């Protein structure tokens, strides 16, 4: 799928970043999971694997949960943040940061771990991390 190639190139991911996984498109969302999970259709599963990305007419948006686990080896379009910036982004704030990345979707990195997905338009980094509960 071209959208998947776009993500790989955007974040400098290795060619095998989805090795062993099967992808299924349901409406405008692509899910990723093991082939055993994605082939399992008994018991009418509500969910198989995790959401990899959402498709829009002119763009593709990776999900925070997928990139936390599958984006670990990303090399490009990463923005590193400190504790305070991370907490602000988790709580839904936008921050100003001067980063050497392209405008568009980026991966926010904290202490070497992918914190989630953000949208960067220099110099503003807007959080796209699902707001679950506040982090102190």
């Amino acid at each position, binding site marked *: 799928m071209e959208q998947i190639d776009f993500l790989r190139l955007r974040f400098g991911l290795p060619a095998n970043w989805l090795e062993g996984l099967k992808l299924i498109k349901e409406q405008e969302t692509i899910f990723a999971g093991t082939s055993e999970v994605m082939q399992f259709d008994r018991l009418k*599963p509500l969910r198989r694997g995790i959401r990899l990305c959402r498709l829009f007419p002119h763009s593709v948006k990776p999900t925070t949960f997928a990139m936390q686990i599958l984006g670990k080896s990303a090399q490009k379009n990463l923005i590193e943040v400190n504790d305070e910036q991370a907490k602000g982004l988790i709580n839904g704030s936008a921050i100003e940061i001067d980063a050497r990345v392209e405008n568009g979707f980026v991966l926010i990195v904290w202490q070497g771990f992918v914190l989630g997905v953000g949208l960067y338009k220099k110099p503003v980094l807007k959080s796209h991390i699902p707001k679950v509960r506040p982090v102190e």
Partner: protein
Amino acid sequence: MKELRRLFPQEFIDRYSKFIPDFDIFLEAMATPLPTVFRVNNLKATPDKVLPLLSDFQPEPLPYYPFGFVARKGEGLGKTISHFIGLIYIQDAASMIPALVLDPKPGERILDLAAAPGSKTTQMAAMMNNTGLIVANDISLDRVRGLIGNIDRMGCLNVAVCRTNGLSIAKTISGFFDRVLVDAPCSSEGTIRKTREALNRWTVKATQRFSMLQRGLIRAGYQALKPGGVMVYSTCTIAPEENEAVVAALLKRYPDAEIVPFQLRGFVTRPALTEWEGEAFPEVVKRCCRILPQDNDTEAFFVALIRKPINGTD
């Protein structure tokens, strides 16, 4: 000690002092708040990378699980960034035992029959290194939402979430799974250390009601197992009606089901009962394990490991 006994209903004391050894020590442990225990999610990180981020919480390793740690200062652990991004999962130590006893292997097919909120599902996904298939089932839509949230947070790629009545699951899918976990809904007496809510709604009648449901679930789980497969039946409760009696009912229905003895190095367990209130259980039921709060500083739990013979009856 009288003060301590006043914290519990008299009927609770009368029932359980009959078979729980060192009963006052047991009550004292039950009245003491639980320590905060967590496991490192090895799908995302190794303990050597995560523990330095949590040094304020003074983590110490559990002797029986390399990914399990007790936080000596646990307050606020659930509000850390590490928790938010799924590097850790807060879970009582006794609740980690059923998955360790079931011991799922990479590439296998696993059924978690009553899976929400997903503590054991996500633990098993990590033990399987995100391979194979875990069917995580729960009947409650609200609880399934929480289950999906935890699966996402922990990055599990090998889980299919279903919402089926566990009692009838084998009508659709029997003889399919390598391993089955039936961590059954129960009266939750073992969780009193976490919240006194279980004690406030405690009645003997409730344990009997749960027992009926549990007998159906253990049977359904057994039917879903493929020949030669293994199942763990567990509860976080003390009542023999919900534990030994449920296993005995399975043995009555499937006499060739094998109760498998097990041990975890560094973790203290006690043998299960062979008699309760005039009902004698088969001697092999003693191979099931009771986990008492005073032995490992955990909740109370019950765990049974059951194997379906290769040529077993369905």
